[in-house]
C-alpha cells in the first residue's frame, strides 16, 4: 500500500547542532508508528518539520504523495497533519470546549457546527465532564487529553503525539494507551514519540529509533529490543556487551 507520509533524506540543524541528519522513512496508512530515542535524539525537531513549524534544511516530506515540507504549519494542518506538544500548550484563557472548538474551526466555519464537532470529540476523549472547566484548571493527564482532542477536532489524516504519556501515573498512562488505540480504530494514522520503551512497544506495529539525529534502526518491537545499537544508545556500552 502506498505510504501516507514519506520522509525523504530530511536534515535540519540549529546553529551548529544537527538535530536531524538524513532521515528517511514511511508511515503506512492506519498504522501506529513509534518514534523512539533518548533525549536530544531529534524526535521533537522531526515533529516540528513534519507539522510545518520549521522548514528542513534538506530533504522533503510528502503527504499522500504531495510535498508539504516548507509550506508552514497552517498548510500542514489543512493538509491533514495534527500534533500535540511535548510541553503542553493549552489556550489558558479558554474553557476545554473552547479549546477544542479552535481545532474544529480548522475545517468548519459556523460556530454551531464547531460546537457539535467539539462535543463529539470531547466525548470520544473522555473530556465531556470537564467541558466547561477553564483549560488551566486541568490536571496534567487531562491537559494531555485536551491536546489530543484539540488535534482530533481538526479531522486529521495523521496525528503526531509527542510524549503524551510521559509523566503520567501508570493508570493514566494505561488510559492514554486506550485512547491512542481508539484513535487508530477511527482510521487516523499515528506517529508517536515516547522515550519509555515499555509504554510504546506494545502499542506500535513498527518503530523508528533515532539517536544523535540519525535513524539508528527500524523494525518491529521484537526486533528493536534485541538490537545491540539500541541497547547501547539507551543503556550504555556495558549492557550491550553483556
Amino acid at each position, binding site marked *: 500500500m502506498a505510504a501516507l507520509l514519506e520522509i525523504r533524506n530530511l536534515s535540519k540543524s540549529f546553529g551548529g547542532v544537527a538535530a536531524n541528519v538524513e532521515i528517511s522513512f514511511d508511515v503506512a496508512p492506519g498504522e501506529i508508528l513509534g518514534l523512539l530515542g533518548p533525549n536530544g535524539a531529534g524526535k521533537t525537531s522531526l515533529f516540528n518539520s513534519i*507539522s510545518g*513549524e520549521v522548514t528542513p534544511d534538506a530533504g522533503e516530506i510528502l503527504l499522500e504523495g504531495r510535498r508539504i515540507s516548507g509550506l*508552514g*504549519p*497552517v498548510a500542514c*494542518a*489543512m493538509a491533514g497533519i*495534527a*500534533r500535540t*506538544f511535548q510541553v503542553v*500548550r*493549552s*489556550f*489558558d*484563557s*479558554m*474553557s476545554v*470546549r*473552547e479549546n477544542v*472548538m*479552535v*481545532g474544529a*474551526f*480548522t475545517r*468548519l*466555519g*459556523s*460556530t*454551531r457546527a*464547531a*460546537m*457539535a464537532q467539539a*462535543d463529539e470529540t470531547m466525548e470520544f476523549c473522555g473530556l465531556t465532564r470537564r*467541558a*466547561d472547566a*477553564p483549560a*488551566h*484548571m486541568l490536571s496534567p493527564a487531562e491537559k494531555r487529553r485536551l491536546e489530543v482532542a*484539540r*488535534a482530533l477536532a*481538526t479531522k486529521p489524516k495523521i496525528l503526531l503525539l509527542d510524549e503524551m504519556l510521559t509523566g503520567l501515573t501508570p493508570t493514566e498512562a494505561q488510559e492514554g494507551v486506550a485512547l491512542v488505540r481508539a484513535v487508530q480504530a477511527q482510521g487516523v494514522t499515528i506517529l508517536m514519540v515516547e522515550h519509555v520503551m515499555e509504554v510504546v512497544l506494545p502499542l506500535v506495529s513498527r518503530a523508528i529509533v533515532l539517536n544523535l539525529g540519525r535513524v539508528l534502526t527500524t523494525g518491529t518491537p521484537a526486533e528493536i529490543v534485541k538490537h545491540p545499537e539500541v541497547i547501547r544508545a539507551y543503556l550504555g556500552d556495558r549492557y550491550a556487551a553483556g
Partner: protein
Amino acid sequence: MQNAITLRRRRELITAGVLVALLIVLPLPFHDPYTRNLMILTLLYAALAQSWNILGGTCGQISLGHSLYFGVGAYVSTLLFVWHGVPPWFGMLAAAAVAGLLALLVGWPCFRLSGHYYAIATVVVQEIAYLLFLNWDDIGGASGVYVPFHGQSWLNLQFRTAKLPYFYVMLGFFALTWIAAWWIEGSRWGFSWRAVKDDVIAARSLGVRVFPSKMAAAAISGGLTGIGGAIFAQFVGYIDPDSILSGPLSILIALPAVLGGVGTLWGPLLGAAVLIPLRELSSTFLGSSGSGVDLMLYGALIMVVALWRPQGLVSLFQRGRNGSAS
C-alpha cells in the same frame, strides 16, 4: 444546542438589552450640562476602549497608539464636512474606512514584531503622525480646525446647546462596539484571535492564520475607533492634534479596558464608568489635565487593580467563573 457558551452568550445579550434600556433613561433626571457631558465622555471612552479591546484584549496585540485612528477619523470626517459639506454620518463611514486602512498599514510591518515591540511601534507611529499633523498647514496644523455650525440638525449632528442628542449618539456608538465585540466573541474569528493571544504556536498548528487574524482585528478595532473620532469632532466642534491625536489620549483609550478587564465584554464600560468621572474630579480639584497629575492617578489605579484584581474590575461580578478563586 444549549451549553455553557450559548447560555452565557444569551445572558450577555439580555444584560446588554437591560443596560441599554437603563442608559436610555439615565440622563433624563440630570439636567445640568456638566453631568450630561460627563456621561457622554464616559460612553465615548467605554466605546473606544471596547474597540481597543477587540485588538488588545481578544487578539492580544497591545496598541498604545490608538489615538492615531481616533484623530485621523476625526480629521477625515471633519474635513469632508468643512470642505464639501458631507454630513458626518457619511463622514463616519469614511473615517472608519481610512482608520481601518491605516490600522492595516501599521499592522503590515509591525505585526511581524513580537510582543512588546509591537506596543512600542504603535507609540512611535502615533507620535510621528502627531508631528505630521502638527506641521501640516493645509489641514490647520497646530491651530486645528473649527467645525462650522450649520444649524441645529440630526443630519449634521449639530445642536445649539442640547447635550441629550449627543448622549444618544454616543450610546449608539457604544452599542455598536459592544455588539461587534459580542459577535466576534462567538464567531470563528473570535476563537482564532483568542488562540493567537494565548499561544501562537498551538494556534497555527491548528490551522489558524496568525498574521491575517491580527490584521483583521486591527482593521476592525481601528475602524471603530475612527468612528468615535468623527462623532467626537461634531460634539466638541473643534479638533487639533493635541486633543485628538496624542500620547496621553492613546493611554486613555486603552485604560478603561485594562482597568475593567482586558479581553472581557464588560470591562471597558465598567472601567470607563470608574475612570472618566475620577478623571473629571481630579482635574477639578487638582488643576487641569495634562499636568501629569492625572497620569500619576492612572498609574496608581493600574497598580491597585493589578495587585488587587489582576483580571480587572469585572472579576468582582463573576461568580467563581474563569478561576477567580486564585
